[in-house]
Every structure is written in C-alpha cells, then in structure tokens.
C-alpha cells in the first residue's frame, strides 16, 4: 500500500491533524491581525459546510442561507443587548431562533421543486431582511452598534477578547465538521449519497429521503444562526443589508464550495482556504473579484464538476477524510440500460 498516491494521502491526513492542532492554538501562535482573519475564516467555513451539506448531499439548493445568518445576528443582539441575557447563552439562543424560523420556512418552500425551492428560500430571506428593517429597537433600516458592555464581556483586554471570539468560531466550525462527518457516515448520510448518485439506490437502502432532507434543512439553521451571532461579535453591528448580506453569506459561500468541490467533505474546506488566500490579491479589484469568482465557478462546473477536490481525488483515488463507504460517482449520469 505504499504507492505514491497513498503516501500523499497519508501525508495529507497527517497534515490535517497538524492543522487542527495549530488551529486550536491559534491565539497563542499568531498575531491579533491573523486571529481576526482566522475568526472570519472559521465563520465562513461553517457557512460553507452547511451550504455543501444541503446542496451537495440533500439536494436542496438554497440561495437564501443569508436569512439564517441575519436572523442569528438579530436574535443575538436582541437577547444580549436588549433583554440582558448572558451573551454566551445568547449565541446559543440565536441558533435556536434560527431553527424556529427554519421550521415554517421548510413547510412553505418544500412545496416547491428543486429550482423553484432555490428561489423560494431567497424570497423568505428578502422578506426577513425587510422585516428586520422594521425593528426600531434594532435601529430600523440603518441598524445599530453592539453595546460596548457586551463586547467587554468576552474579555476586557483586546487580546483576550479576540482569542475568546476566535475559540467560539473555532468551536462552532469544529462541531459543524464533526456533526456533518457523523451525519454523512450514518444511514441517513448513506441514503442521501445513494439518492444523489442514483435515485433508485436510496429506496434500496431504505432511508426515508424526505425525512433526511428535512433533517438537513433544519439541522443547518442553528449553525448558521450561531455563525451569525459570532459574525456580529466581529462586525460589532447589526444592520439589515450587512447582517443579511446575500453577497457575503450566500454568493461567496456558493462560489467557494463550487470551486473547492461540491458534494465532498473536503470541498468547502479547500474552497474557503483558497478564497482566503486569493482574497488578499482580489480585494483591490472591487466588483471584478466577484466577476472572476463567478467565471471560475462556471468554468469549474463545465470542466470538473467536483471542483479542485475532484481534480485532486482523480489523482489520489481516495478521500482525505473517508466519508464514502465506496467510491461514488457523484453528479454523473447513471446508465441503467
């Protein structure tokens, strides 16, 4: 088993373990600037993992996931700043509120088929953003700043505060990854993968696909909501267009996952890393950076649907993180006849 591909694969897995250790120790290892950047990275990673779970496995293409990020931000502000709830508890509650919003949304948009469902989620997101602008205690249409007392609650010294917020983001990303990992290795995950690759396959495994899709849709909401709360701690403001930003919490996330590799566990991770590396160069380009990412995404879909990870996997022949119990032919036409 000492083929070059296997060596690379094992090397990759070792590097992954090392990366997790380094990430856990980030606040002790890196400067404040980098801690801030990595906090943002962790939040984006959570959003990418969640979008990939829905689009890549549960066959739910949502273009409205910014709704839950915004709801989480507004709920966090409400609990912590308006009603004096413990800020840590408020993050958790933000996740619960996002879940509570996801339930009626699911009941509505699941009446629509795939492509229509995508836009249905967008309509809901628009409505929630407009409604958020009507909340005068949250500053109405222009939004408001998070009170300084709440920020100081996470640490009086700047270093401590940045480290605390980072660990919150890291913890959320780590749990998002673990939950997704175990979900995808469970019967439900196997059923979803089977459905995605071949519709008859899922029925054979005996997994209730509708239930699995609902579980995924509802399951992502609390993660998105909590990410929204943590993002608010970084941005220090809530405002409808920023907290419910379709560009930041949906468009970029979709591009990242597509480029990294949709429908694979590694895809969102790779895509988010690539984005953060490229961002330094793209940031000065203004609107061009979205044009470039959009064009690259289309190119990826036309050339290698499974993105960068698909390219790597073609060379290695196995996953870095073994999710699939057998190599799957995702997104490819199945010939049954």
């Amino acid at each position, binding site marked *: 088993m000492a083929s070059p591909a296997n060596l690379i694969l094992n090397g990759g897995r070792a590097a992954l373990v090392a990366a997790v250790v380094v990430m856990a120790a980030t606040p002790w290892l890196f400067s404040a600037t980098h801690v801030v950047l990595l906090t943002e990275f962790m939040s984006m990673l959570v959003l990418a993992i969640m979008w990939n779970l829905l689009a890549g496995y549960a066959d739910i293409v949502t273009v409205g996931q910014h709704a839950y990020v915004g709801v989480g931000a507004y709920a966090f502000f409400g609990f912590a700043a308006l009603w004096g709830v413990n800020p840590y508890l408020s993050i958790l509650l933000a996740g619960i509120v996002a879940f509570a919003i996801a339930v009626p949304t699911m009941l509505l948009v699941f009446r*629509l088929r795939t*492509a229509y469902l995508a*836009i249905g989620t967008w*309509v809901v997101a628009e409505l929630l953003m407009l*409604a958020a602008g009507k909340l005068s205690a949250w500053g109405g249409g222009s939004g408001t700043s998070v009170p300084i007392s709440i920020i100081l609650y996470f640490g009086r010294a700047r270093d401590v505060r940045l480290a605390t917020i980072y660990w919150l983001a890291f913890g959320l990303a780590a749990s998002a990854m673990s939950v997704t990992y175990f979900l995808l290795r469970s019967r439900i995950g196997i059923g979803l993968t089977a459905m995605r690759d071949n519709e008859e396959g899922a029925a054979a495994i005996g997994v209730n696909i509708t239930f699995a899709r609902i579980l995924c849709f509802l399951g992502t909401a609390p993660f998105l909501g909590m990410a929204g709360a943590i993002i608010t701690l970084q941005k220090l403001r809530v405002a409808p267009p920023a907290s419910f930003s379709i560009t930041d919490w949906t*468009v970029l996330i979709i591009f990242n996952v597509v480029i990294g590799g949709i429908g694979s566990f590694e895809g969102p991770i790779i895509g988010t890393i690539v984005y953060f590396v490229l961002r330094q160069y793209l940031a000065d380009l203004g609107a061009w950076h979205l*044009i470039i990412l959009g064009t690259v995404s*289309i190119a990826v879909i036309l050339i290698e649907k499974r993105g960068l990870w698909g390219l790597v996997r073609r060379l290695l022949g196995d996953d870095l993180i073994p999710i699939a119990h057998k190599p799957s032919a995702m997104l490819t036409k199945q010939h049954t006849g």
Partner: protein
Amino acid sequence: MLAVWINELLQGVLLGGLYTLFAMGLSLSAGVMRFVNIAHGDFIVLACYALLLLTTALGLNPVIATLIVLPIAFLFGFVLQRFLLQRVVGENVLLVILVTFALSIIIENGLLEGFGADPEKISGGWMETATVALGDGINFGVFQGITFVAAVVLVAVLDLLLYRTGIGAKIRAVSDDVAAADLIGLSSVRIYAIAMGISFVTIAIAAGFVSIWTNFDPAAGPTRLLIAFEVIVLGGLGSLWGSLAGGIVLGIAQAIGGQFDIAWQIMAGHIVFLVVLALRPQGLFPKY
C-alpha cells in the same frame, strides 16, 4: 375614500401588467426546460442598459431602440442556451442553478464596473407625462395603460405561438418528453435554444417598458427575478394567462403595501406570495 381605494386598485392592476411582462420569459424557460434561470432579472437589467446606450449614445427613440434590441436578444438567448446552458441542462438541475446564479453575479458586477451604481432611467417623453383622468380623483398614466395592454397582448401572442404554431407544438413536445423528441429526430438542443431565444425577446420587451416605468441600477436584477418568479408560481406553473392573474395579484398587494412605505410595498408582495403558496401551492390557475 372609496375613490382612493379604487384608484389604488387600478394602479395595482396596471403594475401587475409590468410584472406579467417580467414573468413571461421565465415562464417559458421554466415551463419548457424545467429549470429556473436565476439570472433572468439580471438579463432584464442588462437589456435596460443596452437600451440606455442606444437611446443616449445614438439618440434613438426608446421604441425604435427596443425594436433593435429584440433580434439581438433572440440571438443572445439562443447562443447562451446552445453553447453554455445546454452543456449542463438535463444532467443535474443543481448545475443549471449554479451556472445561472454565477451569471447573475457576473452581470450585476459587470454592469457595476461599466456604468457605476447610480440609478438610470430612459425618458419616455410625452407617454410618461400624459395621464387619463376618470374623474373622482381616479386617474392613470398613459404609459402605465400602454404597458398593461402590452402585457395582455404579449400573453395572447405567446399563447398563440405555443398552442397554434408548428414551433409551439415542437416546444411543447420537447417539454413533454425530451428523449422521445430526440428519438424521432426533433432536435431538443435546437428547440431549447429557440425557446430560450423567444424567452429573451420577452426579456427585451420587459426591459423596454420597465426602463421607462422606473429607475434601474446594476443591482436591480434580483428584485425583478423574485417578482417574475412569484408571478409564475402564483399564476400556476406553465399557465400564461395565470401569470397575468398572478401579476395583477402581486401588483395590487404591492399597491396596498405601498400606502405605508417602500419596504412594506415589497414585503406585501412577498407575504401574499407565501400565503398563496401555503394555501394553494399549485397556484391560482394551474395548467394541469
């Protein structure tokens, strides 16, 4: 008081005409190719900018400018479908959603780079300022009236095209069963491209009216898409006359919401849409 409400209702109905124009192309592409073109609204805005160039740079009359854009739009839609969307269509609906979504972002930001974020508008001259007074404070703009008539005519023309012509039968055949069409030598690839071309002609027509009706800016696409989408779902998927009804329902809801403020105007439309979706998911006038 009654007159005020009647007036609002009238404005809502006329607005519904504009919304029906937004929806025609989407209804066609969604009905035939079974996918929703997420960049639909952005293509309307793109056509608005094309009209802006023709009317300002060349000083053309907006009606003539629109007539010039129509064949270009057909060709554009044909080529887009034939050489880009066709490559992902039918394989997995996810890919089409992603490609059109990416297109939407590319167009929006491309327009932003090219024209800046300032709102633009095309002058409709006398058509815009003339109003028809029905007495008792009830009146409507001539241009709004023309738009509504245009919407009704467009629905009728598309209905005739789909149900009374050879190409219409071919489009419906491909929509029924793509593989069977290919088996008997009816090239689905070409029919799809033609359908998309027609869809884009309606996009250009919608652009012609909306560019005079109200301001547009590079970010105006998604709003247009959501309205078009709500109109076709409200009306019942695949039903052209249903879309007219859907447009009017949405227009009236927005006109009533608009009594409060702009946010309520848009919210009222979304709320009506979601309520109808909850109570009657098949739409108001389902086709089948």
